[in-house]
Every structure is written in structure tokens, then in C-alpha cells.
């Protein structure tokens, strides 16, 4: 891009990250700057690589779940759903009806928590201190629910092959209902804190415009793609769990900019509340695990063949490809992680923008590095 330019002194080379307050996690960006203008961005990844896919091959099917928890550590429930969609297909184990509903509720609660974290971090990127604490208070309420249900806050390890770790009781259902009753009001408050601020609008409007064609070329999915006006959501396109029995909308925006991604994520949280409200009323009675996969039999599960399952995680389309060779351990596990694909569009988006805009754009992608590096 700059090969023809002989006067290299004109440009500043700046290393943003991996330890930098506004690159989320351990993203490293090599920037070439002309004054304040970003001429070239080169994301460098791999600082959080933990070899999760390979480790999955060394473990029983039921044990690999915890590595998925630690991929997208902000949206661990959705990671578990993604893994189990593939594993249960491979192992031929049907979870009971009640489990599907429970998993749906947990995944949507987790989607709310994940988007809240994103909103807070995005505010910090733009120099807004206060909304961070407002959203984290709400997120803490979701995590309290998780603690009540699964015993841990973030890396929950709640679901297991053919079931869940613990059944819902009346107290939990009451608490979830309480949360969904009070949450929308606070959500609107936080939403207004952002969008009624002219400075926030001026920082996000018409910044980082992503055309739908480009987005599809780069393989961008999730809220990023929907903010560009493409109504693609795995929950509707290829329903898993019980999403086909629930009534909800896929929010899209025609704005295509950073502001659109913000609006779409907040609308998604509203839709998640809608989903939880429906699901918690319809949740059927029944067992909470498949007896074929009870604890004593779990390590003896064998799978053969290959499967690919895709789910809509909080960041986008999360795909898991698994090959089994008939033994108790998977032969190969591969993950299509949405953050990784979404990150690849950052150099395209931040051509000839200011540093401040580049930070806003990279913030709007919603990167979680556990998932990018795996």
C-alpha cells in the first residue's frame, strides 16, 4: 500500500497493544500513522492461544466442554450450546424437551450479559466512564442468577451431554421472572445515556461504514452483519434448541455504521428479554438429563462420523466441526469463531480514518480474545 512512498519519515509506526487499555484483551494493532490519520492497520493475534482445539482431542467428549467455556468467556453459555449441538449430533443423544427450553433461557440470559459488557467497554473506549458501572450492575444480576443455577459466575460449565447439570426450581424461575420484569427499564435508561448524548452520536454516526457485500465477503456475522442490513441469524435461518417455537424479531439496521451496531445490540437485548419471558412460561415438565448420558456412562460415549453444527453465539455464527473415529475421544474438533472473522474486516474499515475512529470501530466489533485465538 505504501511501497511507492519513498519518504518513510512521514509516517509514525505505532504499536497498539497487546498491553493497551483500549484494545480489548490482547489484541495487538500495528498502525502506520500520518499525523492522526491511520494509513494502515495490521492486527496481530495469537497472544491468548491456548490450543483448545487440540486439547479437545485428548479428552473425553464430556470433558471438552470446559475448553469451550473459556473460548468466549463473556458468553460461555452460548459456547456450551454450540459444542453440545455438535457433540449430541455425533453421539446420537437426544436431550429431553425440558433441557432444550432451559438451555434456550440460559443462552439468552448470557446474550444479555455479553452485550452489556460490550456496551460498557465501548463506552470506555470513547471516554465515557459512567455507563460502564450501570451495565455491570445489571450484568452482575445475570451472573447472580447463574450462580444460583450453576454455582459459578462466568465459566459456568452448566450444560452437559444430553442434559444440564441442575434442574430449574420454582425459586430460580421466580428470580428470572423478577429480573426480566425490572431489566427493560434499566436497559432503556442506559440506552438513553448513550444515544441522547450528542457527542456520542457524533463519535459513532457515519463512522466505519461496512457495506453488506463486503461484510459477506469477509464472512462477518452476528450483530455486525445485521447492522449492515442483512437479516441473517442462525436462530431464524436454521433454528436450533427451541427457537422455532418462540416469537421474536431479528433486529437489523440500514445505517451500516458504528451507531447501527450499537442500536442492533441493544435491540437484541430487548428481544432476548422477550424470548426469556415466553420460554419461562412454556417450559415443560420432565427429566433434566437423558438417562443414556448419565454420569456413570458419560465417559463411555462413542461417536463416529463427522458433524458440523452452527449456532448464533453472542458475537455471530459459531460453528463446531467434529470428527469421531469410534473411540471415546473426538478425532478432530474445529471451531469457526465469529470474533476471528469479524476482526478480519478491521483493516478494511479503518483505512484513512482518525485514531479516535479506529478505536471506536475496533470497539464496535465486540472482540473476545479467548475466542479469536482459541
Amino acid at each position: 500500500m505504501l511501497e511507492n512512498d519513498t519518504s518513510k519519515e512521514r509516517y509514525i509506526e505505532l504499536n497498539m497493544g497487546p498491553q493497551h487499555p483500549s484494545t480489548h484483551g490482547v489484541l495487538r494493532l500495528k498502525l502506520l500513522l500520518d499525523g492522526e490519520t491511520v494509513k494502515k492497520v495490521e492486527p496481530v493475534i495469537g497472544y491468548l492461544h491456548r490450543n483448545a482445539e487440540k486439547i479437545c482431542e485428548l479428552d473425553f467428549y464430556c470433558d471438552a466442554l470446559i475448553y469451550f467455556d473459556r473460548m468466549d468467556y463473556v458468553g460461555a453459555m452460548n459456547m456450551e450450546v454450540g459444542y453440545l449441538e455438535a457433540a449430541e449430533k455425533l453421539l446420537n443423544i437426544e436431550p429431553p424437551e425440558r433441557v432444550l427450553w432451559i438451555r434456550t433461557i440460559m443462552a439468552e440470559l448470557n446474550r444479555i450479559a455479553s452485550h452489556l459488557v460490550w456496551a460498557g467497554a465501548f463506552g470506555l473506549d470513547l471516554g465515557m466512564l459512567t455507563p460502564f458501572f450501570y451495565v455491570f450492575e445489571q450484568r452482575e444480576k445475570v451472573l447472580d442468577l447463574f450462580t444460583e443455577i450453576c454455582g459459578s459466575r462466568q465459566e459456568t460449565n452448566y450444560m452437559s451431554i444430553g442434559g444440564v447439570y441442575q434442574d430449574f426450581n420454582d425459586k430460580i424461575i421466580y428470580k428470572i421472572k423478577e429480573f426480566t420484569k425490572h431489566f427493560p427499564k434499566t436497559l432503556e435508561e442506559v440506552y438513553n445515556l448513550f444515544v441522547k448524548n450528542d457527542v456520542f452520536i457524533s463519535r459513532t454516526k457515519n463512522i466505519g461504514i461496512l457495506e453488506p457485500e463486503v461484510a459477506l465477503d469477509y464472512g462477518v456475522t452476528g450483530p455486525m452483519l445485521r447492522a449492515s442490513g442483512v437479516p441473517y441469524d442462525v436462530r431464524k435461518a436454521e433454528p436450533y434448541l427451541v427457537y422455532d417455537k418462540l416469537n421474536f424479531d431479528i433486529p437489523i439496521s440500514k445505517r451500516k455504521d458504528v451507531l447501527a451496531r450499537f442500536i442492533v445490540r441493544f435491540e437484541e437485548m430487548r428481544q432476548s428479554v422477550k424470548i426469556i419471558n415466553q420460554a419461562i412460561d412454556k417450559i415443560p415438565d420432565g427429566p433434566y438429563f437423558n438417562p443414556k448420558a448419565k454420569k456413570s456412562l458419560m465417559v463411555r460415549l462413542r461417536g463416529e462420523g463427522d458433524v458440523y453444527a452452527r449456532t448464533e453465539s453472542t458475537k455471530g455464527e459459531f460453528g463446531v466441526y467434529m470428527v469421531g473415529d469410534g473411540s471415546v475421544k473426538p478425532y478432530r474438533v474445529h471451531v469457526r469463531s465469529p470474533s476471528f472473522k469479524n476482526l478480519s474486516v478491521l483493516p478494511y474499515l479503518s483505512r484513512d480514518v482518525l485514531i479516535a475512529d479506529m478505536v471506536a470501530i475496533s470497539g464496535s466489533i465486540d472482540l473476545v480474545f479467548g475466542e479469536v485465538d482459541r
Partner: protein
Amino acid sequence: MNLLLRIADILSILGHYPSFILAYIIETLIVIIFAVVVIAGMVFFFRKYMARVQMRLGPNRVGKGGVLQVMADGLKLIQKESILPEGRDDLAYKIAPILIFFGLIMGFIFIPYGPLAWFGYLTVSHSDVSLIIIFALLAIMPIGEVLSGISSNNKYAVLGALRGVAKDISFEVPMMLSILAVVMMASVKVSDPLNINGVVVAQSIPFAILEPLGFFIFLISMAARASYSPFDMGESDSELVTGNTTEYSGLRFGLFYLGLFGTIFLGSMLISTIYLGGYYGPFTNYLGFIWLLIKTLVLVVISLTIWLSMPRVRIDKFVNFGWKYLLPLSFINLIITGIIIFGGIA
């Protein structure tokens, strides 16, 4: 009665001149101690207020309600090792925080604090051009900002300093023009309009009412001078790590930090002195100083609320705003003031 004369009176055994010199020194010390106490108080108040806004508790362990936290933090910063970056410009690096703090503290000396009960008027400087001097002193602070940026051999610091300079030059001209309008207005009523005390005396009606446009420009300028959140381009927290202060640690960082809060307080004090009638209010002769404090504190709370709820303005947009809107507006303000004076309305 003036506080200076009172002190000189008490010290009169020493002779005429020595007593006056000593009285000046004592009065200056009083003001400097006031400034330091007020800045420390500001830090504590800010942390408590911020915690309140953000639904947290804030400092609450050291001392009753956390009041000693500021002292503990100060001691921590003093005894900390100051890590010096390699390849720095040593003199500029070391002088930058001192310049900022010096400009700030000197600024406090030229404020007319007004009368307080028995103590009488507290005004250290009786210069006829104190209004000019105080803005000259405030103009020292950007030099510190630039020096800190270019001397610390860090790209983030340079970028922060560049932003800081771009910001400073785009609001200083409108700020001085709005002050010029104030001087014109004051010159109708008093013989020494360049004396900041004269500006206060001239405000039988606060200038904020007579010159709302100038008041608005000056409010924005003071916010940009203190460089808190919508205008913290020099620092650009998290985007450029911490901008020009990136490489500073220990006591030197502490000076930058205190400088920020001190400037908010000094700026609020200047706004209330120049536009809101300073120490004027009911029972001025007894409570003047209290009135000044009340006005200042209200402005401080407003400033902190803005700080906590605003994202950072992008630097090019602020430069645009400064040159395209603030500057023409300040000229319009000047013309309107001229018309008012010429027509003899005020």
C-alpha cells in the same frame, strides 16, 4: 478593612516596611495553603461524587468516610520510585509538571477572595493588570503539556501533546476575546477594568446576564483549559494510554493529576469572579468569601457532572468548532458589547 493591613498592623513593632513585606509573605502563604487544601479536597470530593454517580461507595476505609484517602494516596505517590523513560529530554521532562503546577498555584494568588467577617478583604495582588497576569499564568500550563509530550520519548505522548496543542490554540483566542468584551463592559463603571477586582466591583448586574454569549464561550474555554472529559484530548485516556502523561509516575504524575483538579477549581473560581459577580451577594461585607465559594462549588459540581457523562470529542471536530463557531461568536459578542456601551444602555 483589608487582611493585609490587619496583619501589618499586628506586626507593626517591626517597623513599617518589614511588617508590610512580612504581611505580604504571610498572605501569599495563606492563599497557597488554601489552594493546596482546596485541590486535595477537590480530589476527595471528585472521588466521592464519581462513586455516587456510578453507584459505588468510593473511598471509605482510610479515616472517617475515607477523608484521609487523599493523604494516603499523596504519600504513596511521594515515596514511589519515579520511573524515568530512556532517551528523554531530561530538563524538559522534569520541568513540565512543575510548570503546570506553578502556573496553577500562581493563578490562585491573583483571585480577589472578598471579605470574610472580621478578617476583611483577602486580595494578595493589588496589581492594576491582574486580569492580564492571570491569563498569562494560565497560558503557561499548555507549555508544560507540550514539554511533557515531546520530552518523554514516547509516541503516545507526542500524539497526546499534538492533540493538546491543537485544542489549546483553538479555544484561547475566543477566550481572550470574550475577556476583552468583559473589560470593555467594566470600563464603563470602573477606572481599572484590567484589574480583576475592578471587574468584580463593576458587576452590580452579573456579566453573565449582560453577556450571555461571552459567558457561554468562557464556560467552554475553561472546560477545555482544565481538559476534563469532553475536551480531554491531551490525555485521551485509554485511546492514547494517557497521552502526554503516559511516561510519568510517582510525584511527577501526582502533580499532573493535582493540576487537573486544581484547574477545574481555578476555572470555576474565574468564571464566578468574572461573570457571576465574584464575592457579591447578600451581606457581602461579612460573607463575601462564602459567596465566592458557593458559586465556585456549584460550577465545580456542574463540571464534574459533565466530565462523568460525556465521551471525548474528536479532536478535528473540536478544532472545527473552535475556529468556525467559537471565534465568530466571540467577535459577534464583542460587537454587541460595543453597541451596548456606545448606546449607553449599560
